């Protein structure tokens, strides 16, 4: 191969290679799981990620009276905000549905997730894990789903089978 041809070939390679040097923009900063843990608060139905701690219905009754009852009523009977207890059988055809934790919610893990992220309304993310387990236990016990001495923790909460667990079906229509 002549020198000229070699130079031409090299030049061609440079021309071909040059666009590959430009990368897609990447402006995200790496973060370790430990550093994002304070934000990683969601709990799926398998209960993975539920924190240490535990609480009983009796302990939950105290927390509920202090922090929840003003909006959710005595023993979760509702008013002015969502009713949390009762409604069993009201989903049946022809009934006026009363959708509560007991009658409608399919997963107990959702209770922990939601209380932790959003409640109490005026001071969310303020309860300890023990308090959240206790309030969850209290609401589940009021609905007759667990016994009055059943403590809730990472293992037991994930094992609770909610009465309406099989009440949901996928939406039937996706045109595309």
């Amino acid at each position: 191969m002549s020198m000229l041809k070699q130079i031409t070939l090299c030049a061609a390679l440079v021309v071909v290679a040059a666009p590959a040097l430009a990368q897609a923009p990447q402006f995200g900063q790496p973060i370790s799981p430990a550093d994002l843990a304070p934000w990683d608060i969601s709990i799926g139905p398998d209960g993975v990620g539920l924190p240490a701690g535990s609480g009983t219905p009796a302990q939950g009754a105290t927390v509920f009276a202090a922090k929840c009852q003003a909006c959710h009523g005595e023993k979760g009977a509702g008013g002015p905000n969502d009713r949390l207890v009762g409604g069993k059988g009201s989903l049946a055809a022809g009934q006026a549905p009363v959708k509560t934790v007991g009658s409608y919610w399919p997963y107990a893990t959702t209770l922990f997730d939601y209380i932790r992220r959003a409640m109490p309304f005026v001071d969310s993310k303020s309860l300890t894990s023990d308090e959240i387990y206790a309030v969850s236990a209290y609401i589940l016990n009021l609905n007759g789903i667990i016994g009055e001495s059943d403590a809730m923790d990472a293992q037991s909460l994930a094992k609770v089978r909610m009465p309406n667990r099989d009440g949901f079906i996928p939406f039937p229509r996706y045109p595309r």
Partner: protein
Amino acid sequence: MNDKRNDLPSLEPAAGNGLLNRRIFLEGALLAGATTAGLSAAAADPLPVAPWMKKPGPHFAPYGMPSSFESKVVRAVTPPNNPLTAGVGSSRTPHHLLEGMMTPSGLHFERSHSGIPDIDPEQHRLVIHGLVKRPLVFTLEALSRYPMTSRIAFVECAGNSGALNAPQAAPRLDVAAIHGLLSCSEWTGVKLSTLLDEAGVEPAARWLLAEGADSSGMSRSFPIAKAMDDAMICLYQNGERVRPSNGYPVRLLLPGFEGNMNVKWLRRLKLTAEPTMTKDETSKYTILLKDEKAWQFAFPLEVKSMITRPSPGLLLKGPGFYEISGLAWSGNGGIRQVEVSTDGGKSWALAALSGPNLPKAPVRFRAAWQWNGGPATLQSRATDDTGMVQPSRAAFIAERGLRGNYHFNAIASWGINEKGEASNVYA
């Protein structure tokens, strides 16, 4: 002076009870036909010279506001049912006072589960983690550096038009009260797929959890296919930064999907194998059917339309020509056609589609109507480009009953009485 303009061509009827051919809108010309519109009016008063014609107005403003004469064009704000939980609820777009297909940012509907957070963009972060090779954090400055994309899209609350689930029609409900949880903006931001490619999605990831930085940590799961299709991380709304009540400084846009999934104040996306089953995808935003079962993960808002004029609060001042105007939209695509009836669905005429007709955006429709001064029942029926037709109220109820609360998209009706008053009716 003879003011009878009999030399104008007449308008062609297209359906019963005075509906006229839409070609008046399509061609900008009146066509000869059977009906004589018979326009007439008393002579106008002499023209006065108003004060503003003689004195200059004030200087300019850094941020413009509508005319002071338009002070009634405001959102309908629902008062909180409990003062302890103010910030739970909504405000509704007054579509009966608006035109075109875009919603002014200040009139975009608002819906929040814990008020409107006041977020410092310097401190806000978006994190992508879970089933990814590289968990990543993005500042607003970083998000602003990516190639951007813009699209016009509606956002509609899943509960919009839910008032029509009531067994009896409440006659006084107006467009805002019934249909005001729909708005349309131009959204600009980064394609979510761009950020996911950077994070490196693991094959096991089938869902994403989107979570807000509001105090309720609003959270919803959505499928990976949507994330890689048309999901956007939005920084701008109608050219300016997203408004606080619409998610400032950054919101998720899932075009066509029910409103709350377009998570505002977006702080976190977690890739998961299964849906997280959050409160707002189990206890709320599921559709309880006639029997004990409920539909879950009903994401797209299906084809729908509403007549914004005439409508309650807008009086018809005597028989004659009126434009019937409204919006039609579908979370599954674009709008193929809109039909209008003024006789409660006995006969229909095609409406003209006016202005931009974009997928997953509302399109303005217009029909011409010669009101004879008698009772009328106005309806609109939209068909989207997947072929789905807006169901009648009877067909809607037959499929799911009226216990679902969400995704109400049946044909709605306005009754017009002899006084020219419109009211919410079931027909």
